[in-house]
């Protein structure tokens, strides 16, 4: 019983450690600042062309972005579920 509890605590700590590591990496590592103006202009240009050629695509684009966001959220939930099961799995 105590050994199982210790295993769960160790695994939980490992998962938390990984989360902390990822967050630290994102906050510490400095990504070079992109040329936002140029990027925005390019995106605008591409958007203008798509709007001219395929108006439905630009109309539905917000819905598409929301669906992709939902997909990413589901992936996060799945990952959390996998981690949860792994932490609680003691008889391996």
């Amino acid at each position, binding site marked *: 019983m105590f050994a199982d509890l210790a295993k769960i605590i160790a695994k939980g700590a490992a998962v938390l450690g990984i989360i902390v590591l990822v967050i630290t990496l994102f906050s510490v590592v400095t990504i070079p600042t992109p*040329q*936002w*103006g*140029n990027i*925005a*202009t390019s995106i*605008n*240009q*591409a958007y*203008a*062309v*798509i*709007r*001219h*050629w*395929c*108006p*439905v*695509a630009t109309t*539905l684009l917000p*819905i*598409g972005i929301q*669906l*992709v966001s*939902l*997909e990413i959220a*589901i992936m996060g*939930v*799945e990952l959390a*579920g996998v981690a949860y099961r792994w932490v609680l799995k003691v008889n391996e």
Partner: protein
Amino acid sequence: MKEKKWKVISLFLGLLSLLLPPILQVKNANAIVDNWTINNATVYHTTGSTSLTFTNGYSQEITGPITQLRFFSTSAQSQTIPAQQEFSLRFAMFIKSTANNFAVISCPNRSNSGNIQVVDCDMEIAKTSDESFDYYNVWFNVLVKYNREESSTSDLSVPLTGVVLQYSSGSASYRFSQPIMVITGKSDTQKIIDAINNTSSESAVEQQNETYQQESTDYSTAETSTDTGINQGQNDIEQGGQSLIAVITGFKTNVLDQINTSSTDCNLNLGNPYGFNMGAIDLCYYNPPTWLTSLLNICASLAIVGLALHVFWRIINVIKGFSK
């Protein structure tokens, strides 16, 4: 399995509808003129300058910049000026001077003013004469760069100062003329527009010459004496300065920018030449065939439906996974 199938199909269709338009637009960049749609947002404005001065007895320098530069759509709303873009201005000036007067005419300075930089300039000078006067028809082609990182909806001031006119003796007067859309050859877009307006520009120049010949008779009385002629010339300059109009004839790069494409034809629209409704050709878009647009629209719709189905299956599976 179902969710993966929908994912692949929707991703394929989505990418098709998003990536194909830019690829085809570039591919058709030199397509025939008939298939282009003009964005008739344009730039023009007058200078309110009255600061034209004699720098010496026989030369004058235009010191007043074009004070405003605006994009106008067909609805006359101010539009965004794209960041970091070069565009060409073209404007004309008619000069009347006493006969056999050697004239030196220079381009505007290659200068900076705030976010605007004059990159390049060239001139085309056509001279005609009658018994008493020489008439110069000068076109300035100026390449301007907007240096800001961000696009702007504000008015801009273009440093088109330093146009120097110099005469050996006698009197001279000049006035800026109504602009004519002639393409400077600075970009692919302009070449296309050039092709559209090849004939109309020439007739417009002739019209301008006729107009000027008529107007020049109004000045002739006051310019018979040299002394009064110079004074009258300056008055004319001051009056003429108020009618300077510059037209952006196109972007140097083949920019398809933030300006709305409301127009569906490539016709030059220069109505109300000294007012705010003087539209001019700016940007062209290649008009895809209707069947292709419909196909791309269907692809985009199916992509969204597929993505929605994929997400739906994902949610169902996640819920099932938790309920196990």
